């Protein structure tokens, strides 16, 4: 199966053809995928070289000039390195862009910690007004990319699309807004974000728990969560493919008026200092089905 990132260039190249306001800004990473699009739209496929501050600043300038920039590189270099540009050049200037990352949490373990950014969503949470899409399958990535660039979001919305090498086996009909109810139960709610869904479904097999599937996590679908807790009780387990606890505060806010418990599972904060394979890192962070089952059943008494 192809990866979410394999869909980026085909989808965005089509959007370049369809909408003259769309522009792509790259910092070397990913440029080869856009060679053909660059031939067709030399003024709208821009590679600024290995310059990530300029990457975001130029994206903001494009937006100020009336364009819809799609800005892509690895998460470490897209969100973390130029974070002040994300905060000021987009947020403070009150303009939008679509930031599309790859190689987030531990997509490329052999690359080591320099190429891991499990804190990207938490970091964006310090800013106002960002929509965050975390697709769990290449088909969903395609839907959410189209939604982000123009189909769903307004032209000046600030959108982050987090493309992962991890994927679920099949796609679900995501809409860029709402959580999906994948399973219904009476003893707790498990929210699975993006590519952890398959593991969560395996981990909760036979448990009397509701499973919600979230691919758009900001804004957080509090309505779906509240509806689910109305039937299944207010014990909530969050399973996120990035920093553990990233959405805990959001869940607390959604359930502020009722007694509730929240368990936030995800990537650990401690630097692992290991290379190896993606699956080995998933296991090391306790995100494999067996460990998830242990932790979820221990919590949902």
């Amino acid at each position, binding site marked *: 199966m192809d990866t979410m990132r394999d869909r980026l260039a085909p989808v965005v190249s089509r959007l370049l053809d369809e909408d003259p306001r769309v522009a792509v800004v790259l910092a070397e990473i990913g440029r080869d995928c856009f060679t053909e699009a660059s031939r067709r739209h030399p003024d709208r496929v821009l590679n600024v070289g290995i310059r990530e501050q300029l990457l975001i600043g130029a994206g903001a300038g494009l937006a100020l000039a009336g364009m819809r920039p799609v800005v892509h590189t690895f998460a470490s270099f897209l969100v973390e390195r130029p974070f002040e*540009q994300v905060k000021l050049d987009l947020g403070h200037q009150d303009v939008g862009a679509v930031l599309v990352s790859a190689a987030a949490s531990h997509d490329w373990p052999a690359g080591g910690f320099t190429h891991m950014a499990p804190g990207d969503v938490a970091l964006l949470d310090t800013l106002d007004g960002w929509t965050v899409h975390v697709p769990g399958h290449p088909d969903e990535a395609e839907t959410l990319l189209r939604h982000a660039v123009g189909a769903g979001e307004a032209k000046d919305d600030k959108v982050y699309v987090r493309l992962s090498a991890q994927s679920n086996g099949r796609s679900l009909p995501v809409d860029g807004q709402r959580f999906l109810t994948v399973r219904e139960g009476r003893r707790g709610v498990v929210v699975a974000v993006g590519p952890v869904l398959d593991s969560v479904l395996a981990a909760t097999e036979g448990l009397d728990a509701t499973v919600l599937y979230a691919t758009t996590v900001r804004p957080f679908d509090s309505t779906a969560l509240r509806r689910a807790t109305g039937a299944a009780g207010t014990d909530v387990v969050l399973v996120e493919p990035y920093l553990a606890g990233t959405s805990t505060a959001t869940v607390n806010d959604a359930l502020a008026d009722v007694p509730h418990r929240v368990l936030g599972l995800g990537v650990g904060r401690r630097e692992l200092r290991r290379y190896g394979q993606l699956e080995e890192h998933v296991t090391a962070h306790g995100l494999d089905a067996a460990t998830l089952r242990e932790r979820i059943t221990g919590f949902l008494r």
Partner: protein
Amino acid sequence: MTTTAERTYGCTDLPGLMGLMTGAEKHGPAATSTLDVLWVLYDRVLRVGPERTDDPERDRFLLSKGHGPMAYYAVLAAKGFLPVGWLPGFGSYDSPLGHHPDRVLVPGAEIGSGSLGHGLPIAVGTALGLRAQGRTDPAVWVLTGDAELDEGSNHEAIAYAGPAGLDRLHTVVIDNSSASHARPGGIAARFEVAGWSAETVDGRDHEALYTAFTTPHPGRPRVVVARVEPKNA
């Protein structure tokens, strides 16, 4: 000279307009260092005006050096972008005029600035965006300080804009010798090696500034280094 609802303002009125703003003395030298450059640009060079702040064909002026914006506000007031009556409220809770400008609050301000090193990269993107839309007429201007050039983000923009041939992009560097570590070879040289058209002039000489601002520079972005009295002299 510009006529506003009440009266007409010229360059000699700017000190009086600046005198209406108090409370940011520490940014005083930063403010007066830009005064002549701003006046020449707004009075004679930029194709902008309060009636066309949303016109896609307008020139863009990006004040990157958002420190000490009194001269900027004074010029915007003189040119009718904002009411003179706003100036005395400078920096107060109810005023749109902060010690660093906010584009969302200040009519005519293309960017909000204060944190150094953001204007030039944004200007690069604006120039790219205009070009991509076939708008080859509007010029993009960005004003930075000499110490502001220490920020690496500016060097990313300088290095890219030259080879990219962004000939609608212009930078004015106000050089009041405030950088702690002087740039080897001088400021203009830094731009020239990156393929920019560069000139250094007396930042108080209006004719010299005007000539430097309007010198043709086909195929290349343009920098004008405007030298003014040293900040700490």
